[in-house]
C-alpha cells in the first residue's frame, strides 16, 4: 500500500499530486511527521498526497533518485527533508525547473533559489537551549561529554555545534569527551556503556543530539552505577524518553514539533499550488521539556499529537 | 550354479541430447567377480551410477533378487545392499577416516554418533593398513590411500554387491595385490563384485565373468576363462589391435635436462638424473614414494629446497625461483596425476582447456582469435580421439578417459621440449592407451624428452628407453630399460637397495 492521503477513485480526472520525502521512513520522528502530513491530506481532499521515503533511509543517493523518479512521475509539488544540504540542490532545483513546486523541511538546503519555502526547527538554537538546560542541571559547573550522532547528518551537527558554542560561555564547565558517536539505539547503547565505563567517574553530564543517541545513552546509564550522578540532556521525544524524564533518568530533552512540521509542509505546498503567498522560512519551533513542564497543556499538544490515528486511518 | 542376484534388460540413459546407454543387458550372480569392460565413454560409470541410485535410468528393467529395483537415491542402493566405489573419489576431506567410512550409515543413540573404531580398524587391516589411525583426516592422505578408504567403506557397509569403478587406477601393485585378496575373500563370502578396469591383465586375473560395453550397448558377455585379451579388445573397439606398445625409431641425443640432488620439502630427498633428447625415461615406485613430488618440484609447483637443475647447454633453471610459468617458457610441461582438481578447469570448455597453457599461439596483442583457437582445439580432439558432442561443451560433460585425453592435448599443443607425464594413462581404455603410447613415441622421434611416472610397470617396460626407481624420495640411478631385471626394480622400489650388480 502507498501513502495516499486521499484517493482519487471514481473520478477520471487526476488530482494534483504532492509528494513528501523524509530522510527515512521508519523512525518515530518521521512517523510523527507522517501523521501531520496525513492530517493535512485529510483536510485537503482536492489533492493526492503521497508519503514517499527513500528506499534506504538516510542515503543521499537514494533520496536524489526518489526525487528524480518523482519528477518523471510528474507530481505537482514536492516537499523534501534533504539528507544533505548541498547534494540535494541539483535534483530539487531540477524539479523546480520542471514547474514542480518545491518545499524544503526539517533540514536546510544550501541554495535558496531551489525552493520556495523552508519549514523547520532551528536546530542550532535547539542545541543552544540544550546547553542552557545542561548548565542548569549541573549547576553551571562540572565535566561533560557528548554522544554525537553519525557523521554527515546536518540537523544533528547543528545541534552539536549550537550546544558547544553555548556551553563555552560557562567557565566552570569543561567538555572532556566529544569524539564518541552513537548510531542506532544498539550502537549508541554499546558506545554509551563503554563511555561510562571509562569516563563515568569523571562525568557530570552528557548531551545526546537525537532520539537514538539519547535512548541508547539512557539505556546504558540505567544499567550503570552512575545513574543518579550523571545528568543527561537529550534531543527529541518518544515514550521511552518520556518515561526517563518522569523517573529522573533524563534531566531534559529538546523537542521539535514534527507533527506540525509535516502538517505545515503540506499546507505550504498547497498554498504554493494555489498561488497563495508563503513565507520563505516557517519555524516550527523547539522547546525544552523537563519533568516539571511536561504536563503543561501547551507541551502536551507538541509532545503527544495523535499521529497514529492519521497513519492508521489512511 | 549360483543364484542370479542382479538382472538388467534394455537399460537406456539420456543426458539431454547425449544418449549414453542404448540397451544394456547384464546379469550378475552371487559370489562372482564380474568384469565390466569398455572404451572410455562406453557408459560403464553411467551404468553403475544407475545401479547405485545416483542417476535414474531413462528406460529399461532392473531386478535385484528377482524383484524390481529402481533406486531413486544413493542410499536406496546402499540399503538394498549395493555399494559403489566411484571412479572419482567421494570422500569429505575435512572428516576423519572413520567419519568418512560411516558417513550416511552412522549408528547412533539419541543422535549421538557411536564409536565404530574397532570395525574400521578391522577393515583397514583387511586392506593391509593396520597402522592407519581411523581418526586421521582424509584430506591429508594421498590419493591411493584415499581409494582404500572408499573400499573400506564398502566392506564395512556389508554390501551384497560391490561395484568398483577403476579401483586400482591409483593403487600400487602391492595395494592392488592386497585388494585382489580382499576381493577374493568377499567373493568367497557370496558377495558379487562388479569390477571395472582398463587393465585387462588384471581383469583376467581377478574376474570370473565379463560383460563388454560398446557405445552404451552390451556387445558380449561370458566366462573369463574362455576368452583372451585380444578377443576382449576386439569386442571393445570393434576391430583388433595389432600392437599394444607400438615403437617408433627414435634417436637419443644431447643431454636436455640435468638434475643434481634435487630435494623438496618432504619428498624427494635426493633425485639426480640426466635426460637426453629423444629419450623416454620411466620412473617407477610404490605409491607415496615421492615421484609426483619430484616432478612437481622440477616443474615449480612445489618448492625446491635444494639441488640444481640445468637445461641443455648449461642453461640453469634454478638460478631464479622455478615457477610453472618459467618452466613452460623454458620448454618444460607437466601432466598432472589429479585431473579433477589440477589437470583441468572443469567449468571451462574443451577448447579453453586445450589452449590454456599456450594462448600465445592463438592470440595477438593479448586478444584471442576464437576461430583459430577452435580450429586448434578441434584438431587435437580429433587427433586424440576425444569423444565429445562439440569442443565448446564444458569439459565436465566428458567421461574420465576423454578428459585425460584433453589434458594430454593441452601438453601436445604447448609443444614443449621436455614432458613430465604423471600417470598419463590413468583411467584410459586400452585402445586409447595404445594411441597415447604411440604419441609418446612420436614425441621422442621428434627429439622431445619425456619422463613418465607410472605405477603400472608393464607400460613402463613397453614404452621407455630407460628407467629409474624411487624409494621414499630417493631416486635410483637411471639405467637403460634392458639393464633392469624385475627383481632389481621391485627390490629398489620396496627396500631402496639396488641389486648386487649396481654399476
Amino acid at each position, binding site marked *: 500500500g502507498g501513502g495516499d492521503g486521499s484517493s482519487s477513485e471514481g473520478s477520471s480526472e487526476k488530482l494534483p499530486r504532492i509528494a513528501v520525502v523524509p530522510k527515512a*521512513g521508519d523512525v518515530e520522528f518521521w*512517523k510523527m511527521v507522517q501523521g501531520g502530513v496525513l492530517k493535512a491530506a485529510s483536510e485537503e481532499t482536492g489533492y493526492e498526497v503521497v508519503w514517499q521515503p527513500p528506499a534506504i533511509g538516510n542515503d543521499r543517493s537514494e533520496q536524489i533518485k526518489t526525487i528524480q523518479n518523482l519528477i518523471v512521475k510528474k507530481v505537482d509539488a514536492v516537499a523534501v527533508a534533504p539528507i544533505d544540504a548541498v547534494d540535494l540542490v541539483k535534483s530539487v532545483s531540477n524539479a523546480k525547473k520542471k514547474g514542480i513546486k518545491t518545499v524544503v523541511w526539517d533540514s536546510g538546503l544550501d541554495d535558496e533559489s531551489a525552493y520556495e519555502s523552508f519549514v523547520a526547527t532551528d536546530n542550532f538554537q535547539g542545541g543552544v537551549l540544550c546547553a542552557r538546560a545542561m548548565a542548569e542541571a549541573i549547576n553551571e559547573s562540572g565535566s561533560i561529554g557528548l554522544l554525537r550522532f553519525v557523521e554527515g547528518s546536518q540537523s544533528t551537527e547543528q545541534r552539536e555545534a549550537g550546544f558547544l558554542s553555548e556551553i563555552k560561555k560557562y567557565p566552570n564547565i569543561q567538555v572532556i569527551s566529544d569524539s564518541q558517536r552513537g548510531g542506532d539505539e544498539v550502537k549508541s547503547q554499546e558506545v554509551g*556503556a563503554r563511555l561510562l565505563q571509562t569516563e563515568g567517574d569523571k562525568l557530570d553530564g552528557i548531551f545526546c543530539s537525537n532520539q537514538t543517541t539519547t535512548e541508547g545513552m539512557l539505556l546504558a546509564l540505567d544499567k550503570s552505577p552512575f545513574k543518579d550522578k550523571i545528568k543527561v540532556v537529550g534531543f527529541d521525544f518518544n515514550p521511552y524518553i518520556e518515561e526517563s524524564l518522569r523517573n529522573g533518568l533524563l534531566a531534559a530533552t529538546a523537542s521539535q514539533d514534527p507533527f506540525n512540521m509535516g502538517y505545515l509542509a503540506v499546507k505550504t505546498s498547497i498554498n504554493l499550488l494555489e498561488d497563495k503567498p508563503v513565507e520563505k522560512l516557517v519555524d516550527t519551533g523547539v522547546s525544552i521539556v523537563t519533568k516539571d513542564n511536561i504536563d503543561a497543556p501547551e507541551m502536551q499538544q507538541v509532545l503527544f499529537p495523535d499521529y*497514529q490515528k492519521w497513519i492508521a486511518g489512511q | 550354479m549360483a543364484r542370479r542376484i542382479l538382472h538388467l534388460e534394455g537399460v537406456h540413459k539420456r543426458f539431454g541430447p547425449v544418449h549414453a546407454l542404448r540397451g544394456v543387458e547384464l546379469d550378475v550372480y552371487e559370489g562372482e567377480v564380474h568384469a565390466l569392460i569398455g572404451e572410455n565413454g562406453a557408459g560403464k560409470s553411467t551404468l553403475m551410477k544407475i545401479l547405485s541410485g545416483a542417476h535414474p535410468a531413462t528406460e529399461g528393467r532392473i531386478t535385484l533378487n528377482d524383484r524390481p529395483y529402481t533406486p531413486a537415491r544413493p*542410499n536406496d542402493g546402499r540399503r538394498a545392499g549395493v555399494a559403489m566405489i566411484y571412479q572419482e573419489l567421494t*570422500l*569429505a*576431506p575435512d572428516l576423519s577416516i572413520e567419519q568418512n567410512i560411516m*558417513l550416511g550409515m552412522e549408528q547412533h543413540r539419541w543422535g*549421538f554418533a557411536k564409536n565404530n573404531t574397532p570395525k574400521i580398524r578391522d577393515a583397514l587391516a583387511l586392506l593391509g593398513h593396520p597402522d592407519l589411525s581411523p581418526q586421521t583426516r582424509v584430506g591429508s592422505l594421498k590419493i591411493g590411500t584415499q581409494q582404500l578408504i572408499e573400499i573400506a567403506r564398502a566392506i564395512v557397509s556389508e554390501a551384497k554387491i560391490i561395484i568398483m569403478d577403476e579401483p586400482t587406477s591409483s593403487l600400487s601393485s602391492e595395494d592392488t595385490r592386497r585388494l585382489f585378496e580382499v576381493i577374493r575373500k568377499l567373493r568367497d563370502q557370496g558377495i558379487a563384485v562388479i569390477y571395472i578396469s582398463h587393465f585387462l591383465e588384471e581383469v583376467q586375473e581377478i574376474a570370473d565373468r565379463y560383460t563388454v560395453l560398446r557405445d552404451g550397448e552390451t556387445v558380449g558377455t561370458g566366462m573369463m576363462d574362455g576368452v583372451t585379451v585380444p578377443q576382449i579388445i576386439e569386442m571393445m573397439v570393434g576391430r583388433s589391435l595389432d600392437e599394444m606398445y607400438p615403437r617408433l625409431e627414435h634417436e637419443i641425443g644431447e643431454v636436455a635436462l640435468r638434475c643434481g640432488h634435487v630435494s623438496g620439502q618432504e619428498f624427494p630427498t635426493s633425485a639426480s638424473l640426466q635426460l637426453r633428447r629423444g629419450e623416454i625415461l620411466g620412473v617407477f615406485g610404490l605409491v607415496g614414494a615421492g615421484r609426483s613430488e619430484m616432478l612437481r618440484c622440477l616443474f615449480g609447483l612445489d618448492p625446491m629446497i635444494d639441488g640444481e637443475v640445468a637445461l641443455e647447454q648449461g642453461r640453469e633453471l634454478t638460478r631464479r625461483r622455478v615457477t610453472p610459468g618459467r618452466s613452460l617458457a623454458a620448454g618444460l610441461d607437466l601432466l598432472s596425476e589429479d585431473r579433477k582438481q589440477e589437470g583441468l578447469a572443469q567449468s571451462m570448455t574443451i577448447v579453453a582447456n586445450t589452449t590454456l597453457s599456450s594462448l600465445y599461439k592463438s592470440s595477438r596483442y593479448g586478444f584471442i582469435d576464437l576461430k583459430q583457437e577452435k580450429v586448434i582445439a578441434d584438431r587435437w580432439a580429433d587427433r586424440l580421439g576425444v569423444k565429445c558432442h562439440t569442443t565448446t561443451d564444458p569439459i565436465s560433460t566428458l567421461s574420465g578417459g576423454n578428459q585425460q585425453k584433453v589434458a594430454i592435448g593441452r601438453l601436445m599443443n604447448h609443444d614443449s621440449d621436455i614432458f613430465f607425464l604423471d600417470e598419463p594413462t590413468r583411467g584410459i581404455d586400452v585402445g586409447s592407451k595404445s594411441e597415447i603410447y604411440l604419441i609418446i613415441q612420436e614425441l621422442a622421434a621428434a627429439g622431445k624428452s619425456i619422463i613418465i611416472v607410472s605405477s603400472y610397470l608393464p607400460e613402463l617396460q613397453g614404452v621407455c628407453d630407460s628407467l629409474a626407481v624411487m624409494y621414499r624420495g630417493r631416486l635410483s640411478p637411471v639405467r637403460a630399460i634392458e639393464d633392469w631385471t624385475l627383481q632389481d626394480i621391485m627390490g629398489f622400489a620396496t627396500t631402496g637397495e639396488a641389486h648386487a650388480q649396481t654399476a
Partner: protein
Amino acid sequence: MKLKPFLYNMLPFVGLVFVIVVSMIAIQIKDPSGEDLANFMSFDNIRTVLIQTVVVGIAALGMTLVIISAGIDLSVGSQIALATVVFAFVVNGGSVTPPEVDSASGLAVTLAILATIGACGLCGLFNGWISSKFRIVPFIVTLGTMLIFRGVAKWIAGGEAVRTPKNAAQGFMDYDGALGIGIGFYLLIASIIVTAVLLKRTVLGRYIYAIGSSENTARLCGIGVENQKVFIYVLCGVFTGLAGVMQYSFLGSGNPTIAVGLELNIIAAVVIGGGSLNGGSGSAMGTFIGALIMSILGSTCTMLGAETYVQEMTIGSIVIIAVGIDRLKHLKRFQS
C-alpha cells in the same frame, strides 16, 4: 603427535591474546598513569565486554553451523531486528502499543520468547527451503530475505519502535545475575556447549561438516543434503532468535531498524574463529573467541577515546590480522 593437535586447537586463542596485549599496550601508552589500564582489566569492564558479546556470539554460533556447511546467511541482522519486534509484539499481547499494565506476566514473556525463536526458525526455514528447492545460492537468497525480513519487521512494527511494559526479559542483559552478570551470558555459555557437542558428537554435526566438505560426497553417501541444509538454516534461525531475545533485552523495546549490517560482524566472528567460507571448518569455541575479539576491540577504542575513523581502521586491521595469524599457522602446519 599428541602435542600438535593440542597446539592447533589453541590457535584461535593466539589471536585473542594478541588483541588483548595490543589493547593493553595502546591503553597504557595513551594513559601512562595506568588508571585506564586498570579500568580495562577491571571486573566491571570484563563483564561489560562479555555482555556486549552475547548477541553477536549467540547469532554467530548459529552462523557457524551454516558456514561449516558451506552456506551463508546474510539475513541474520534483519532477523534480529524482526526478533525484537516479534518479542515486543507478543509481550504486548499482540499489539504494537503496550497494554496498560505495570509489568508483563511471566507467561507473556515465555510466550514471547517462544514466538521469537519460532519466528526466526521460520525465517531459517524459508531461507533453507528456497535455496534448496530452487537451487539458488544462499548468498542471494539471504541477500533477498535480508530485505524481506526487515520489511516484515517494519510492517509489523508500523515503522517505529515497539514499546513494552516492564518485564523479566528486560533484565537478561543486566549485571545483577549470578556473579554479577545477567542470564544472557549464561545462555551464551550454554549455546557454546550445545553447539560444540552438536558439532563434535552428533551425527548431525558430522553431516554438517560432510556437506560443507564435499556436498557431492555427502549426497552419494545417502545424506539427504537438501533436507539437512534446510534444517541447518532452521537451527541458525533458532540461535538468531535467541540472540534476538537478548537484543530485545539489551534494548528494552522492539525496533525494526536496528542491527543493520550486523550480519557482517557475525560472519567475521565465525571466520576470525577459524571458520572457512568454503565450508568444512569452524568450531563453537573459535566462534566465541571471534565474537569476543570484536567486543574487546570496541571497548579498547572507547578507552582510547578514538574517533570513529580510527575505530573503523583499527577494527578493520585487526580482523585481517587476526585471520592472518590463523592462516600463517595453518601454512606452518603443512610446511614444517
